[in-house]
């Protein structure tokens, strides 16, 4: 019951948090940078002490097949949440696809350990979340934030995560301790990813000149791509203030930066050949 009450309260908070689309350097709006950097150092220390050693060990000792099965099962438990969000976004085909995957993988895939929907029917998942729902509903990206333990995010995506956490359909369907299975599965997937992509994580966190800035640029680019405004041009047309890379277009407050859900144009990407000094 408390979960149901939490939804309107969170929606209200989300609405209040609806940020203006103010973008500064490099298409990055980071007004909380100093606080974010502290969180980043905290996250790095957690990685050094816990996530990195445990993740690499987990991935090493787990047989590949079993590791994949656990990840599959964890992913399967997230599907009901995807379906709800797809419906909220009016993406009916995605909702149908995720429903199909949940039904097929829970049965033929034996509780989701096998990806029968993919293997037998070629139906791959369409991951989504409440952050994307907020995007579809027209909420702006907001500020970049690095969350403790969870890592890079934005104001919009942080609220999205909170809503997803409290409204997971599986959480309503199950009662403790079964309802914790989803969270445990998610945690194991994080360990698995930290182990499997160890060198990528290590490069990013420990070998880059500024790991905070690297994590930020990687997250924002990839997240915008997921949401459909990829590094791409085309759709916009008209005058492009970003054509001169050395004119530093990022100092301008981008009026065109508000993400248009349907457009694929990335206003932050310009032709490097337009530099007059070359």
């Amino acid at each position: 019951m408390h979960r149901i009450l939490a939804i309107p309260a969170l929606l209200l908070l989300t609405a209040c948090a609806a940020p203006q689309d103010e973008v500064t350097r490099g298409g990055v709006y980071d007004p909380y940078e100093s606080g974010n950097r502290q969180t980043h150092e905290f996250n790095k220390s957690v990685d050094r002490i816990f996530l990195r050693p445990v993740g690499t060990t987990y991935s090493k000792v787990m047989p590949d097949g079993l590791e994949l099965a656990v990840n599959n099962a964890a992913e399967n438990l997230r599907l009901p949440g995807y379906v709800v969000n797809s419906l909220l976004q009016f993406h009916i085909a995605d909702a149908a696809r995720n429903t199909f995957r949940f039904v097929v993988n829970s049965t033929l895939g034996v509780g989701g350990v096998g990806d029968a929907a993919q293997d037998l029917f070629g139906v791959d998942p369409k991951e989504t979340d409440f952050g994307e729902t907020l995007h579809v509903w027209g909420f702006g990206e907001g500020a970049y934030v690095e969350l403790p333990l969870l890592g890079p995010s934005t104001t919009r995506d942080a609220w999205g995560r909170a809503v997803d956490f409290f409204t997971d359909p599986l959480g309503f369907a199950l009662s403790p301790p079964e309802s914790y299975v989803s969270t445990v599965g998610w945690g194991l997937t994080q360990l698995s990813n930290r182990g499997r992509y160890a060198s990528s994580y290590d490069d990013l966190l420990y070998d880059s000149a500024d790991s905070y800035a690297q994590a930020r640029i990687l997250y924002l680019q990839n997240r915008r791509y997921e949401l459909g405004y990829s590094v791409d041009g085309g759709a916009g047309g008209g005058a492009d203030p970003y054509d001169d890379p050395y004119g530093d277009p990022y100092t301008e407050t981008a009026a065109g930066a508000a993400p248009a859900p349907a457009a694929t144009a990335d206003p932050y990407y310009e032709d490097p050949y337009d530099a007059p000094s070359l």
Partner: protein
Amino acid sequence: MTLHRFNSRPSRRTVLAGIAASAFAAIAAPAFALTDAQAKSLVDGLVGEINKVIGSGASEAQMIAQFERIFARYADVNVIARSTLGADARSFSNAQLASFTDAFSGYISRKYGKRFREFIGGRIEVNEAKQVKTWTEVSATAYLRGEAPFEVKFFVSDRSGSNRFFDMVIEGVSMRLTERTEIGAMLDANGGDIAKLTAQLKRAG
């Protein structure tokens, strides 16, 4: 006489228009000269070489060397390197930029070449090309072992004088923009000194 004048006018106009048109063509030509087919064929060649390397079972050092050759042949290393410096590039001399570009090329090759090991057994397939703004984007799909297929885009331009790619974008993540953040951070850490940055790049990656 009058007739002649009347006759000469259109002809002068034609000549002027002709000059203007050819001047315009000279300016506009580079933007339109690169066809989708040419861009795609460049990426076909590039991807063919990458596939050969990841299928070869070469050692890490060999892969890095091969990647550096491929990078030098297909990428516009100059524009990639300089654009990672952003506005600061203007304040450096040509000699400084040349040695920076050289160090940058080695740095990129080591950094990305050593990742080729993870691609062993995988392949990249080229899909289609399309004009975007002033360049051509060629999309491809990477199929790696144990991974869901993902999209890789190559941004191709002939504005350097030859057909080259100037960016590689993996699921929205641009190599050029990501490296600009990294190089910018390194330059800051070196107090804006490009000689120190170049020296650091020679060791990094």
